[in-house]
């Protein structure tokens, strides 16, 4: 089970993402409605995963990712954005996000975005274990 921080300035999107997270068997670590709040919540709650909107007032999602990466290299971040905003997604991925989710969002899309990241993560762990086995030999 993952502890997930939901960051979006839209109340309805936060509400829906939280519902999907619960339905998928994960836990809601917290929620934030702009980048600054996301940074504070990330420090305080140390989530496993963050869903991060890109276009937000005060501080956007890309800047928040950059600042989070200065103190937390471990947390996985999924950007939430619209079709057509691909260049911003690329900027966010360069800043340290692991994946993205295109609006309109539904439970299936969120599940797939999480699976994409944690499949990679599982593969990394498997590779590390294999390396260890070879080293032991």
């Amino acid at each position, binding site marked *: 089970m993952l502890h997930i921080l939901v960051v979006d300035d*839209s*109340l309805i*999107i936060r509400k829906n993402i939280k519902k999907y997270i619960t339905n998928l068997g994960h836990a809601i670590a917290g929620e934030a409605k702009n980048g600054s709040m996301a940074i504070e919540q990330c420090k305080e709650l140390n989530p496993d995963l963050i869903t991060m909107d890109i276009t937000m007032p005060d501080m956007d999602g890309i800047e928040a990712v950059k600042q989070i990466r200065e103190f937390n290299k471990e947390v996985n971040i999924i950007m939430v954005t*619209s079709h*057509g905003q691909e*260049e911003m997604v690329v900027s966010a991925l360069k800043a340290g996000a692991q994946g993205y989710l295109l609006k309109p969002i539904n439970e299936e899309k969120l599940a797939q975005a999480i699976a994409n990241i944690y499949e990679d993560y599982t593969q990394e762990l498997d590779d590390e274990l294999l390396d260890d086995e070879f080293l032991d030999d």
Partner: protein
Amino acid sequence: MHQDNTPSLEHEILSPLIQRSISFLKEDLAIQVISENIDIILPNKIKLKKNTAMLGTGGNVQVLISMGYDDALLAQVVEAFLEGEAIEEDEREEIQESVSCEVVNTIVGNALKNPLDGTTLSITPPILISEAKSLFKQKSSQIAAATITTEFGEMLVTVVGPKELFSQTFNFKEL
């Protein structure tokens, strides 16, 4: 592209917004659109719907885009977003505002590219215009608008921008 090949507010900006709005209403929200032949008007003044959300595009193409809804249509859009989940009556107004803003954010984000080079247009966070009144055209500006009629009422899509989006030499006009 416009018939005389001059990029225009109505063809390069409003038309893709209308198309995406229709597909969003039909496919994502399961709301029936009565007619997909939508007339575009270029009025000097336009009365906005009471429930209207607005955002701006940034960078080389700077326009203001608003989307407004009749009460019954907005109520149906909210229901579609809630996916059957019940809400407290005291949070209904805030949810409605949030949905109004989210629709314009999603449609504009999905629909618009820079008409000249296909790059992404940046968009501002949306704002809600409470009890919206009217927009008036100024000397150097233009208004383009279209009404999409659905089974639950009308959605008004309005774009305000400079009279000429670009100069004849295809460089961006200074705004």
